[in-house]
Structure formats: structure tokens, C-alpha cells
């Protein structure tokens, strides 16, 4: 029990961020009109591409002779970049189409 409490104490910063972000995420898109559902999904998809930062860190920390880590990290950075760049470009194209229709 006490170890659990101390765990919470040590990680309180994270716990606060997680709770606040959950509420914020729900709050800011709460009134989205249904025409924007797909572009919003696509935009959110691009934002979770932040995972690429983790991939860059993996890649940058790998020892230069650890080829397996290098190859996996390399692949991870490529996939992450695809997610980020592709996500933002697709969203932009969707919204462009949206404007023309109006």
C-alpha cells in the first residue's frame, strides 16, 4: 500500500498531465460539426505521429554496432515520418476540398 502511494507521489506530474489531457481532449472537440468528423480524425491521426520523437531517440541512442536496434529504429523513424507528413498533407487536402465545395 505504502509503495503504491509513494509511486503516485513520485509520478504525480504524469498523473496530472494524463487526467487534464483527457478532459481537455474531450472538451475541445466536443462541439465539432459532423462534416468535420473525417478531417478531424485525420488531423488527430497526424498529431499522434509525435511517436516519431520516441523513434528518433531510439535511433540516436543506439550503439553504432548494434545493427538490429539500428535497423528497427530506422524503420520506426520512416514509419513515424510517414504518419506525420502523410497525415498533415492528407488533412490539408481534405480541408481544401471542403472549402471549394462551399
Amino acid at each position: 500500500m505504502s509503495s503504491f502511494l509513494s509511486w503516485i507521489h513520485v509520478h504525480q506530474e504524469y498523473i496530472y498531465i494524463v487526467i487534464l489531457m483527457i478532459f481537455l481532449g474531450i472538451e475541445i472537440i466536443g462541439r465539432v460539426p459532423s462534416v468535420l468528423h473525417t478531417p478531424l480524425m485525420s488531423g488527430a491521426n497526424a498529431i499522434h505521429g509525435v511517436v516519431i520523437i520516441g523513434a528518433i531517440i531510439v535511433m540516436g541512442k543506439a550503439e553504432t554496432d548494434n545493427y538490429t536496434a539500428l535497423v528497427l529504429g530506422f524503420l520506426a523513424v520512416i514509419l513515424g515520418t510517414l504518419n506525420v507528413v502523410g497525415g498533415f498533407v492528407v488533412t490539408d487536402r481534405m480541408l481544401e476540398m471542403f472549402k471549394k465545395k462551399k
Partner: protein
Amino acid sequence: MEINLLTVIYLLASVKFIIGLKMLSNPAAARKGNLVAAAGMSVAILGTIFLYKDEEGNSLHNYSWIFAAIIIGAVAGTMAAKKVKMTAMPEMVSVFNGMGGACAALISIVEFNHLFGTNYGFIKCPDCAARLHAHNFYLLEFIIIFAGLIIGSVSFAGSMIAWGKLNGKVKDRSFKNQHLFNMLLLLAILALSVYNVGFELRSMSLFNFAGALFYLTLFLSLLYGIFFVLPIGGADMPVVISLLNSFTGVAAACGGFLYDNKVMLTGGILVGAAGTLLTILMCKAMNRSLKNVLIGNFGGAATIAAQAG
């Protein structure tokens, strides 16, 4: 100095993500919102590459590899996104979402092997115990590595199936008692993870298996992703993609915990929460419940078609 600057950059990027997402939900500002979020992302990525320092104060290396990978990804991503037909955009989103999930799973794989010092498999690790005890919060890291692996690979496999369904390559398929099968699969994944995480609490004698069990978990998670999406009707795919999108968000947040990186945590949880709500809103727009979409089609496809007709 540099590390402090990086903290400010991450803070800025997090705020840009929030503002970007907010603007994306407003028709007049949506396009600008996308650019705001993209700017935040660029700053965060560049900042990480040039300013990141680990606990011992070492900068990143392997720059040529990093830049090569980013260039390949950026060129391929832009080409794919520019070429895709307007009607095929949801399936493109699904592919990109799957890439993000795979990225999170790969990070977990590398970190697992880093933590254990194994060479990607069964090789014994005599100094494992010492290594692990040197890690103060190792247990938490281990749990997070597993969470990232499972969620990331489910999202990856599911997105690929969703993509296949949207372009007509994969047909709706379900078999008798698939519900039960899926549930058992999920239970097996969780049991495996608990068993594996429990290593630290028990003796260290089973370490030889840890690698094997880890990859078994990876395999089962991929399988679960496939069977999770396979029976869902093609018309419901956007809802499923949105759900998988929020999964990937959570997987990205796992990476944030692992690297003590607040921008990953913020972005990931934000998308996880917003994505979940968006999934529910999309269901509502179709006048259905999420439960109905996810499990309604088991043997009920004919009924729904009859109701619609």
C-alpha cells in the same frame, strides 16, 4: 542551456497541438488549425534531433541514419498523400494510422531488448538482475513497454485490415463464436503480459524465456488486431479507424512515459481522449451505438440490412 531550450520547445509544441486540434473542430479555422499543429510537430522534431540529451548528458548520434529515414518517410508520405484520390482518403488515413502504431510497437521492441540486454531472443543474460535493480522504476517501464507493444500492434494490424476493407481487397469475414475467440485472445495477451511483467517479482530464473514470451505477445496482439476488425462491416470502417486512431494515441503516450517526454505524453493522451469522443460522435451521427458497430454484425448483418431496406 540546450536541454532547457528543448523543454520550452516541447511546451510550445504541446500548446500548438491543443490549439490546432481546437481549430480543426471549427469549419472556418480548420485548415489553419492543421498548419498550426504541423508547425508544432516540426518544431518538436527538429528540437529533439538537435537538442536532446539523455540522463548522462550525451547528445544523439547516428545523424545520417536519422536524416535518411526522415527523408525517405517524408518523400513517400507526401507522394502517397498527394496522389491518393479524394474518395480514397479514409483508407489513406488508416494506412498512416497503422504506420504510427507500428512505430510505437517497434520502439517497444527496441527498448525491451535494451532493458534486458538480450540479443533479440533466448540468449541468457547473467547480469540481468543487477541491471534491473539499478533501474529504480523498472517495473513501471516494463509495464509501459508491454502496453506500447500491445496497443501499437493491435492498431497496426487493425488499420491494415481496415485499409484492405475500404479498397475492397478484404471481405467481411466472421465465424461462429468469434466473440468468444476474440475475448479469449485478449485474455491470453493480458495473461502473458502479467506473467512476463511478474518476472521481476519472482525469481530471475525464468529470464531465458522472457524474449520468447515477448514475441509471442507481439504475435497474438497482431492476430487480435486482425480478428477485431475482420467481422466489422465495411461501411463502419471510418468509426473503426477513428477508434484505432485513439489507440495509437495511447500507444504514443506510452512512449512519452518511457522517455520522460512530455510532448509525446500530451499529444498522445490528447489524441486518445479526443479520438475516443470522436468515435462516439461518429457513431451518433450514424444513429448507432459504438457497441452496435463493433459487435452488431456478428450474424446480424442480414437483420441490419433488412432494417435499412
